[in-house]
C-alpha cells in the first residue's frame, strides 16, 4: 500500500516493467508492517471530479517531495500524507485550480491534473520524508531488513534537509517512535499503551501543522491522536499472522485480544477522530475529506475485520 510515484501506470501511460519493479522493491522496503496507506478514500463513492482532485493532490505531493528532496525521496510517497496535504489545504486555502502536467514516470501518458505547489503541499512533503525516515529506521533496527537499510541510504540526504527545516517535528516523531519501540521491547500486554504512544506521536505532528488555526487546534490534536491510534490498531491487527510467524511483538497477540475487542477499539478511535474532524471548519476539499474520514476509513476498518474489500486501487 505504500506508494511511490507510478501508482496507476498499469492501465495508463508507458509500461515500464523493469523500472516499476525496481521502484516497488525499494519503496516497499520493510513490507508487512507498513503503517502507511490506511487513510484513503472509498473510490466508489467519489464523484469523478473529486477523484481527479484527489489524484491531483497525490501528484502534487509527489512533485513537492521531488522538488524539495530530490527524485529518490519520491519513492516514499504515501497516501496518508496525501490525506494530510488535502486536509491542510482544505483548512488553509480556498479551492485551488489544478494544472495539467505530464508525469516523468509515464512519459507516454496523457497530461494529468496536478495541484500546483503551495505551502501546505510542502508541509505534507516534509511530514512524508520525516515519517518515512523514522519508519525505515525502526524496520532496519527491529527486523534487520536489508531493504529498509537500503531505503535509509536513499533517504538520508532528504531527511537531513527535512530535519534542518523542521527540527521540532523530527524530534516529535523520533521520541514518539522510540517510546513505542520501548513498549514493544518489554512486550507490553496493555493494548491501549502502544496505540496511545503512536497516537501521541501523530498528535504532535498534527499540532505542529496547526499554526493559525486558532480555536480549532484542540480538534486537530484530537484528530491526530485518534487517527494515530486507529492506524496503529488496524496495522497491528492485520499483521498478527506475520508477527506470530516471525515472533515479533504484536499488541493484539500480547493482550490476547479477539476480533470483537479489536473492532470496538478501532471503531471507537475512528469515531472519535471523525467527531474531532467534524469540528474543523474547512475552506475547501470538504467532499473528499468527508469521503476519506466518514466512508473510506470506516470501510477499511470493516475490511480489516474480515469483511470484503470494496475499494479498488486509487
Amino acid at each position: 500500500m505504500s506508494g511511490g510515484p507510478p501508482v496507476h501506470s498499469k492501465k495508463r501511460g508507458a509500461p515500464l516493467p523493469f523500472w516499476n519493479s525496481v521502484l516497488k522493491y525499494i519503496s516497499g522496503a520493510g513490507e508487512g508492517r507498513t503503517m502507511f496507506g490506511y487513510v484513503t478514500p472509498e473510490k466508489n463513492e467519489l464523484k469523478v471530479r473529486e477523484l481527479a482532485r484527489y489524484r491531483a493532490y497525490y501528484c502534487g505531493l509527489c512533485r513537492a517531495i521531488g522538488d524539495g528532496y530530490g527524485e529518490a525521496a519520491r519513492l516514499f510517497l504515501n497516501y496518508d500524507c496525501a490525506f494530510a496535504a488535502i486536509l491542510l489545504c482544505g483548512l488553509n486555502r480556498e479551492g485551488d485550480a489544478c494544472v495539467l502536467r505530464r508525469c516523468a514516470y509515464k512519459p507516454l501518458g496523457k497530461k494529468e491534473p496536478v495541484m500546483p505547489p503551495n505551502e501546505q503541499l510542502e508541509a505534507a512533503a516534509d511530514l512524508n520524508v520525516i515519517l518515512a525516515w523514522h519508519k525505515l529506521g525502526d524496520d532496519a533496527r527491529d527486523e534487520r531488513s536489508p531493504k529498509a537499510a537500503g531505503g535509509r541510504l536513499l533517504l538520508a540526504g532528504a531527511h537531513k534537509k527535512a530535519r534542518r527545516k523542521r527540527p521540532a517535528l523530527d524530534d516529535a516523531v523520533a521520541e514518539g517512535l522510540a517510546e513505542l519501540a520501548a513498549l514493544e521491547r518489554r512486550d507490553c500486554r496493555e493494548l491501549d499503551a502502544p496505540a496511545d504512544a503512536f497516537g501521541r506521536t501523530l498528535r504532535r505532528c498534527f499540532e505542529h501543522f496547526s499554526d493559525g488555526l486558532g480555536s480549532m487546534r484542540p480538534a486537530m490534536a484530537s484528530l491526530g491522536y485518534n487517527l494515530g491510534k486507529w492506524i496503529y490498531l488496524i496495522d497491528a491487527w492485520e499483521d498478527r499472522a506475520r508477527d506470530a510467524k516471525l515472533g515479533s511483538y504484536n499488541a493484539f497477540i500480547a493482550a490476547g485480544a479477539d476480533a470483537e475487542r479489536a473492532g470496538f477499539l478501532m471503531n471507537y478511535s475512528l469515531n472519535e477522530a471523525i467527531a474531532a474532524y467534524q469540528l474543523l471548519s474547512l475552506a475547501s476539499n470538504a467532499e473528499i475529506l468527508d469521503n476519506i474520514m466518514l466512508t473510506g476509513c470506516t470501510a477499511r476498518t470493516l475490511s480489516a475485520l474480515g469483511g470484503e474489500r470494496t475499494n479498488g486501487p486509487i
Partner: protein
Amino acid sequence: MDPYKVLGVNRDATQEEIRAAYLALVKKYHPDRYQDPSLKDLADERLKEINEAYDLLTKRSAASSNGGASGYSEAGYSGQGGSYSGPNAAEFARARALVNANDLEGAKRVLDSIQTRNAEWYYLYGIISLREGWYDRARDFIGRAYFAEPGNPEYAQAYKTLQNTGNPYSRSSSYGGSSRSCSGCDVCGGLLCADCCCECMGGDLIRCC
C-alpha cells in the same frame, strides 16, 4: 454570519429542509459526542452558531429567542450526578470533582489512595481512561461498574454511550450507528415468514405461495 451557509442549505430551501438540516447538525455537534472539555467548548460554539442561524431563518425575532432558548440548548455534563454514599464517600466525591475539573492526574491520585475497588471506583477510573484515550481499559472498567450495579442510571448511560461509539460509523445515525437497517431481504423474509404462520393457522397472507 450567513445562516444558509452555517446550516449548509440552499437559499431557496424550504422550511422543512432547513429544519432537517438543523436537526442533523444539532445531532452532529451534540455535547455527548465530546469527552474532552476543549472539544466540548468548540462543539458548543458551533451549536450556538447553528441555533442563531436557525432562528434567523425561521423568522423568529432575535429578541425573543435570546441565544439557544428557542433552539437546542446544552444539557450540561452529567458529572453533577454521583448519588454515591458507600465507603470512602468523601474521597470519591473529591475524585469526581477533579474529573469534572479535568484534573485527571489529580483524580487518579485520589482514586489510587482508595483501597475499595467498588463500582464507583471502576466507573470514575473508566471515565478518566476514556478522557485519556485508553478506550480498551475504559470499556473494561465502565463495564465492571455497570455489571456490578446495573440499576445505576449513570453507569448504564456511560456504558451504553461507550458501546455505541464502538460501532462502525454510519452517516444516517450521525454517530456509532446502533440502529439496524431493514433491507429488502428482511422485508421479504418477514412476509414469507408471516405467510407460513398464516398457512399453519389455516389462513393465507400471500396467495401465490
